[in-house]
């Protein structure tokens, strides 16, 4: 029985199509685990359960058969005795190949040929015609000679399906829940920021694009999108999830755009200049901390002018943001880049700048192998060479180990944890001014 049954309820969890973080020092960071990919489909179907095989049609052609789980709703004792995955046929050759041994009518330039399809390849069809002594095989060339092919109704389905034999004490119509993992469903986030002429406020929206190449259509699906960003809910609570409020039709071979967050219109934006003295190499040392004081990353010396907006709650998913400037009825594209996300806020990069420079010094570093701690005292000095005051944000990566802390008394400017291994310091810098922040971070492992 197909999905046309009335009891259909579909839930889809799709993981973000984000590539694994690159290891800047080469090789894989051992022990980091892998981010899930694809999607988890959970559907309710009504099946007519008897002693024979039950065909569950319109499942994803890209499903992982080992992940299929079938659970009785009407009969909790329902058990699967046997399960087969019948792959779908996506091309004319696939469809014809699946009909070998079945009746076929082939229209040719010399009339119709009716018989049994015996073989097929890209060049020809082999059709058995006649019976008894008159039986013969005809090879029909597909290049020009074959004009039309009619297949008998029914037969092997073109779409992927699951064939199962079920054991139940209550034969007849039953509601079951089927779940499986599949490839062919991915999503990515895209953001839009439209800044007003005075650059004081902007409209900020986020969209998710779900691409479905799974070979099947999902009607009225409850969609959950999982990002590659850890949730803020509590440490270790896993990746951030976005639930789409309304059921969505996700057609086969379709891209579906849905809103990821409520639109934030006319929100106040703040111009900031971010500064990163070193590259973020945290991923490299997540499973094996860097305990050598002499081991320091190279310099990044990267400053960017950005517009910042508060985004309470979980961090936004990684994605591209396009920044437009509104001038009358005209919109002009200003930048297109990855959205910079931090806890509680998002930043839209306008452009890199050389007018904010910085210098990072390690003032001291102490390793205590007995207590498995490393204390590092760091100074970051910034200079504003622009013609006007700026709000500078020094982004410091606590890259040596995932477990770190900066006590309030350990910093000359109050910092904020912006990401699992990032601390940010805000400094108001008048034009031409220099300021610095000194902090001490303690790593444990």
């Amino acid at each position, binding site marked *: 029985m197909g999905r046309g049954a009335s009891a259909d309820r579909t839930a889809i969890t799709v993981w973000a199509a984000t590539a694994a973080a690159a290891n800047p020092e080469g090789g894989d960071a051992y022990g980091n685990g892998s981010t899930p990919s694809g999607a988890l489909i959970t559907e309710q179907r009504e099946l007519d359960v008897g002693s024979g095989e039950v065909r569950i049609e319109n499942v994803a052609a890209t499903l992982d058969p080992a992940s299929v789980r079938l659970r009785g709703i009407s009969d909790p004792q329902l058990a699967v005795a046997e399960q087969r995955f019948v792959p779908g*046929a*996506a*091309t*004319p050759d696939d*469809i014809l190949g699946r009909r070998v041994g079945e009746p076929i009518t082939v229209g040719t330039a010399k009339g119709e040929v009716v018989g049994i399809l015996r073989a097929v390849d890209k060049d020809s069809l082999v059709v058995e015609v006649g019976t008894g002594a008159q039986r013969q095989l005809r090879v029909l060339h597909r290049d020009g000679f074959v004009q039309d092919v009619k297949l008998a109704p029914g037969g092997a389905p*073109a779409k992927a399906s699951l064939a199962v034999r079920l054991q139940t004490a209550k034969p007849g119509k039953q509601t079951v829940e089927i779940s499986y993992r599949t490839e062919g469903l991915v999503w*990515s986030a*895209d953001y*839009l920021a*439209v*800044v007003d002429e005075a*650059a004081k406020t902007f*409209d900020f*929206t986020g*969209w998710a*694009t779900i*691409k*479905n*190449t799974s070979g099947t259509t999902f009607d009225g699906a409850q969609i959950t999108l999982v990002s590659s960003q850890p949730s803020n809910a509590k440490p270790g609570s896993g990746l951030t999830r976005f639930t789409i409020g*309304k059921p*969505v*039709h996700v*057609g*086969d*071979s*379709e*891209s*579906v*755009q*849905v*809103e990821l967050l409520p639109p934030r219109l006319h929100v106040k934006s703040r*111009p900031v*200049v971010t500064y990163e003295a070193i590259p973020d190499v945290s991923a490299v040392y997540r499973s094996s901390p860097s305990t050598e004081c002499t081991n320091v990353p190279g310099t990044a010396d990267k400053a960017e*002018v950005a*517009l910042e907006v508060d985004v309470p709650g979980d961090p936004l998913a990684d994605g*591209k943001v*396009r920044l*437009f*400037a509104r001038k009358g*009825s*005209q*919109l*002009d*594209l*200003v*930048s*297109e880049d990855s959205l910079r996300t931090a806890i509680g806020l998002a930043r839209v990069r*306008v*452009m890199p*700048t*050389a*007018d904010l420079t910085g210098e990072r010094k390690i003032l001291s570093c102490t390793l205590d192998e007995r207590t498995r701690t490393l204390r590092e005292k760091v100074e970051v000095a910034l200079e504003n060479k*622009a*013609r*006007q*005051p*700026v709000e500078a944000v020094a982004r410091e990566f606590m890259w040596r180990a995932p477990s770190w802390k900066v006590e309030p008394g350990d910093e000359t400017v109050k910092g904020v944890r912006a990401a699992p291994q990032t601390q940010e310091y805000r400094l108001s810098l008048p*034009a031409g001014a220099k300021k610095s922040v000194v902090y001490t971070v303690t790593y444990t492992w």
Partner: protein
Amino acid sequence: MVRWFGLALAFVGGACGAALHRVANDAASGDNVTLFRGGVAHVQHRIAVDLPAGASSVKLEIPADVKTEDLDWIDRGGLELGAIHVCASDPPQLIVGAQCGSTVDVRAPSAGHYILSVTYPTKLVWDAAYTMTTSATHDRATIRGSIAILNATGIAYHIAHLRVIDSALDAGVAARALALSASLAGTNVGTSPHAEVRDLGAVELRVGETRVPLIVDSKPRGIRSVLVYDPIGIALDTPTPASMPSEEPELGIIAPASTRVAESIELARSRSSSGLPAGPVRLLESRDDGTLAVVGESQMFDVATRVARVDTIEVGTAVGVSARRERREFSIDEDTHRIVEEFGIAIDNTRAGAVTMLLREHLYRGQNWAIAYASVPSTSVSKVGAQEITLRVQVPAHTKKTVVYVVVYSW
């Protein structure tokens, strides 16, 4: 009458079961299209539609090269947007038995007239070309120009504002980012000239080629004769600003510079030529018998001469005048971040009359430079582009004259 071309929008049968509606005729809802060099266009499409209250599903037509994630819904017009369904072409595959059409799910708070606005990048190839017609006396000329836009999107656009920016999309975007960055944080705006926006007005851009006039004013303008010496050309220019100028000592001097001087026609740019896109120009001579003859061909409004006050069109080789370009000094100071280069251009006029020479010099090492010295008056030295200057000099009859200049690159 259906007036909408860009994104044809009509109700389709869907979950709402709404009837087919015609798209509204709304003069205030034309598209804005900005053309960039390289065949990329940015389309801001407005969709006007009359909707019943509640949920509707509407058909959406977009060019095949537009990715779903590139659709930016910039104005919902008071509608609640649901899912947008776009047929995926990535990866390409044969769809068996499936019907594919793109739709937008919307919900209207009440029945009425709504205007949505969406932007996306797409491909619209264009080319500009000019003709200059002069009399046999070569003292006045009439310029005409047009831009030909090839619309192969399969969608006809009704454009309220067609604009052209003669730079690649990236460069155009970078220029706006630079301006916004300067207003937000007082950052340096740089000195490289950016392409101006040229508004071409309202245009009906049907499928196929559309030609739009670029220069409406066709009053004859004064032209004059000039000799141009441009031995290097733009071949060594660096199109994108690099933070470091090239330190290659032999750059620009390995092959001996040509001594050829070009006989040219010079035409001053008017204020109305701001933002005109670069393109070839043919100089036609209108003869007394009414025939036209091509007497020269060149490039006008070139990116390399973006801020020039004149354009020149070569009409042949100058007889009796030659020039020689020679580098006299080259030094690099890594401590002060400076490269100093000195050139001498020796001109030999063997003609019986004085000539006006225009020396085109290309500062190909980088885009951060300054002219530290020139042996001609400063009013005769003009910056004409990000990496080009001209030096104007009068050379009397039967005279040899050498022009010297020093350029300092910094980083």
